[in-house]
């Protein structure tokens, strides 16, 4: 079984490029060039140097001793929270901005939900001196004011998406519309492993540095490259794609994807796509998504803005459908408690997205000598407001 993308842009039955003809030249240009460009020695050199000197890679693989004691197993944390800008998102934006430059693009657009991908995009645009426009739902702009300010300080223009529910899904629609209107000079930096082929594969490759490092680091610490399980939260799924990437074809490594159940899977306010979704088309990709019986895309809910997306990347849809991945959903409450627990036990304030991955230990039992790597995708600074309100701090 192959869990990577095939030559037609599909993971099993998921993926493809369901895009209007207006986007065909842009997406086709990318499809024809991305592997070739990524294979260039000069590209790899620049990418690797920036990851090292600018992002601060490799990020540590940290043995969480007290957390491990509590749950009577061996838990390692892959510290993506220590990346420049506070999350794994920057691995992808560095890669894509280098790609955009090589394709001769001078204008960069991006969508953002909570603002993490927007900040990571604004950051690399500042670094490269390229024009940057970030689309963000009007509702999100109001609830994520610090990140809006960050983007502005970094020189980006933040454009409010006023259509639909005015959140991430609508920001993505607006970014796609902008790309239709500006087909020649613009590159669209998608922030997750979603969208038309080749985006899911390209983003996964840029993020795959995470599992590449886990292999080397685990070898040093445990004298083995492969953990028993690798765990990551999934919204669109880019940090998970990076953490799983080099283990996809290694069946002895268990893959655990953690989705946001919101207020509960049956509450009507959830983002647990594998449990609630059906096969359909969202943002140019055939994948699992939450929708009405009539094929209208529905609004998700999660306390974590980064998981608040009604679809999931096609790679993950295939991991779910094929049974290769174990999918667990975690409620808002469970995630918040797990986040606070990591603060108390390890002195690390996690992003609420990552807290979902940490919350599985309450219910999913592991053996004492199991080695588990949890991808700690981001830090919690951006979520302080939510933590303060939730815990009355």
């Amino acid at each position: 079984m192959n869990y990577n993308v095939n030559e037609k842009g599909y993971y099993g039955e998921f993926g493809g490029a369901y895009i209007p003809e207006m986007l065909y030249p842009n997406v086709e240009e990318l499809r024809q060039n991305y592997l070739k460009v990524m294979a260039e020695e000069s590209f790899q050199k620049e990418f690797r140097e920036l990851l090292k000197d600018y992002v601060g890679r490799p990020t540590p693989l940290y043995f969480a001793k007290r957390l491990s004691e509590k749950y009577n197993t061996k838990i390692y944390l892959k510290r993506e929270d220590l990346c420049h800008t506070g999350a794994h998102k920057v691995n992808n934006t560095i890669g894509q901005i280098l790609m955009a430059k090589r394709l001769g693009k001078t204008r960069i657009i991006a969508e953002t939900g909570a603002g993490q991908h927007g900040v990571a995009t604004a950051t690399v645009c500042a670094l490269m001196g390229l024009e940057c426009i970030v689309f963000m739902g009007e509702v999100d702009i109001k609830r994520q004011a610090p990140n809006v300010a960050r983007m502005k300080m970094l020189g980006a223009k933040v454009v409010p998406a006023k259509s639909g529910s005015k959140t991430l899904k609508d920001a993505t629609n607006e970014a796609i519309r902008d790309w239709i209107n500006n087909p020649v000079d613009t590159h669209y930096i998608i922030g997750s492993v979603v969208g038309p082929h080749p985006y899911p594969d390209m983003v996964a490759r840029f993020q795959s540095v995470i599992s590449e490092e886990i292999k080397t680091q685990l070898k040093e610490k445990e004298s083995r490259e492969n953990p028993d399980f690798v765990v990551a939260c999934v919204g669109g799924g880019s940090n998970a794609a990076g953490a799983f990437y080099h283990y996809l074809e290694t069946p002895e490594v268990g893959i655990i994807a953690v989705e946001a159940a919101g207020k509960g899977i049956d509450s009507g306010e959830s983002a647990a796509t594998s449990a609630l979704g059906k096969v359909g088309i969202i943002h140019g990709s055939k994948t699992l998504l939450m929708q009405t019986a009539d094929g209208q895309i529905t609004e998700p809910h999660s306390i974590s803005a980064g998981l608040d997306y009604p679809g999931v990347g096609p790679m993950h849809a295939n991991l779910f459908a094929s049974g290769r991945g174990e999918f667990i959903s975690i409620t808002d409450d469970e995630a918040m408690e797990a986040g606070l627990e990591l603060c108390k036990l390890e002195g690390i304030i996690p992003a609420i997205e990552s807290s979902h991955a940490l919350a599985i230990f309450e219910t999913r039992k592991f053996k004492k000598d199991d080695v588990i790597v949890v991808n700690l995708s981001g830090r919690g600074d951006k979520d302080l407001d939510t933590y303060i309100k939730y815990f009355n701090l």
Partner: protein
Amino acid sequence: MNRIKNTLSENKKLLSIYFTAGYPKLDDTIEILQQLEKSGVDLIEIGLPFSDPLADGPTIQASSQESLENGMTTDLLFQQLKDVRNTVSIPLIIMGYFNPVLQFGVENFCKKCAEVGIDGLILPDLPLAEYEEHYAKIFKKYGLLNIFLITPQTSKERIRQIDTASKGFIYMVSSASVTGSSDGFGKEQENYFERIASLKLNNPLIVGFGIQDSKTFSQATLHTNGAIIGSAFIKMLSEKGFAGISSFIKSIR
């Protein structure tokens, strides 16, 4: 013979109108269709609303959202169209996004189209390759023409490919834009219309996006077979209702 082909063989500049079914009111569909035919329109695109219309500008987005809030569904649209052929005889095309069709079941959708007398489909996010591999046979079985789009950025090679795959007409997107966003056509568009016309394609060309009045209609149809008006018609409908249809159409051509 498919009604679309029949109409295309007439020697005149065709006027096609797009409207969103279920807007302004849920049950307006048939009335709008009848009035359009009476006003002399040659071809109609019935918009099946979608929650996330990627290729559409603010006007069609808003009408789609309102239509969905009014309660429009795929099932309901087919119910509304059940007897349409008793009163409307010009070609009818359903234009929508692929996901609602996929959820309805592509074969089931095509079957329903044939039953009520739909002549073709425009599904902008169903790519050529997917269509040919999975769905062309089904469309053919039910006598439906699939209309493809080209844009100023479409390569000559791909235009030829699309021409070969097309059986009705080619929907020529006037400029690099979403629907409803043009302030008239300039030299660049005129050159593009002429350039494509000079390729002498097998299929007639009908221009869409940015046509709003008689001036843009004449510009768009100088070298092509017709033009489609969507956003401008919906705007008029929002302001004046049915009463404005006849004078709007007469003001175009």
